[in-house]
């Protein structure tokens, strides 16, 4: 159905965003469960999910905090995981950059994998959308995902303390991370970045203050960027 009004753009966004509740829901719930296991109360879990809205970054912060790392390392590690949203922000700016400031503030707050991926694809495919229609579509893609994100964070926090004690929950987080990262490894430079990060991460595990993570991440990024340049140079 073609988008003709601001309202129809919003509902098109809601429809396109709907399937993603099945991605956001389980991660939100897992965060609620693991955060509760780590000693956070429901209010702390909800504030965390509300303030940050980024599964991978929240899991990272939780894990690094449990390693007793200094607070600044916790924050830097989680923000590093979240750097990709800056890329999304840059990618959407040509389409939304001329919208009113208050709308851009809300759009920025709600910028997640799903809202970026759907909106960027739509704006590229339908270039004649007006800016209000684009914004309406964008907010539409966020609606259900956000409701599910907060709702399932709460459900997980409420459930957390009632799970049987012998579940191997220590390994829920590594499995969640690996399942998120595996589909992202699309090209050879991605693979090289991940491999270098793993090797350096294992070697640097005893570096104090959990700084090994930052060193390994930086090494992986540089390896990926260099591999990309190198491959481009070879096949112009």
């Amino acid at each position, binding site marked *: 159905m073609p988008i003709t009004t601001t309202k129809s753009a919003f509902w098109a966004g809601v429809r396109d965003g709907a399937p993603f509740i099945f991605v956001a829901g389980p991660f939100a719930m897992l965060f609620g469960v693991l955060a509760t296991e780590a000693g956070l109360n429901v209010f702390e879990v909800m504030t965390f999910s509300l303030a940050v809205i980024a599964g991978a970054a929240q899991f990272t912060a939780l*894990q690094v*905090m449990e390693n007793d790392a200094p607070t600044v390392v916790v924050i830097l590690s989680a923000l590093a995981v979240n750097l990709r*949203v800056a890329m999304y*922000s840059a990618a959407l700016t040509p389409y939304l950059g001329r919208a009113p400031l208050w709308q851009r503030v809300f759009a920025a707050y709600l910028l997640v994998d799903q809202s970026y991926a759907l909106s960027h694809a739509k704006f590229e495919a339908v270039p004649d959308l007006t800016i209000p229609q684009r914004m309406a579509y964008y907010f539409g893609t966020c609606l259900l995902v956000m409701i599910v994100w907060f709702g399932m964070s709460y459900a997980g926090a409420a459930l957390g303390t009632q799970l049987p004690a012998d579940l191997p929950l220590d390994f829920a987080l590594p499995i969640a991370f690996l399942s998120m990262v*595996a589909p992202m490894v699309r090209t050879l430079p991605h693979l090289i970045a991940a491999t270098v990060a793993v090797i350096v*991460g294992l070697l640097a595990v005893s570096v104090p203050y959990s700084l090994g993570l930052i060193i390994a991440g930086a090494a992986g990024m540089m390896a990926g960027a260099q591999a990309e340049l190198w491959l481009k140079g070879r096949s112009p």
Partner: protein
Amino acid sequence: MIDTATLWTVIICLGVGSFLLRFTFLGFVGDRPLPAWLLRHLRYTAVAILPALVAPLVVYSGEGGSTDITRVGAAIATLAVGMWTRNVFAAIGAGAATLFLLIYVL
């Protein structure tokens, strides 16, 4: 256990920091293009940081930093199925099933 002061510092700084990451370009930069080298590095942040975080958790997963073969098996299954199917749920299912199976068998 995580202490309350640390937790709230992290929540507030991460909330503000994440918002700034999201708002920087949309809000401040406008239509100006970014340098290519910066975008090139940003493309690899997630695929570098997440594996770097997970690798020690997998390899030193046993007691006192030894290697727990059930965890390594589950990690390999998660990665293999995730890269093969590109499906997050298939990967989680494979990882969890492998973990329970190995714990039961070994």
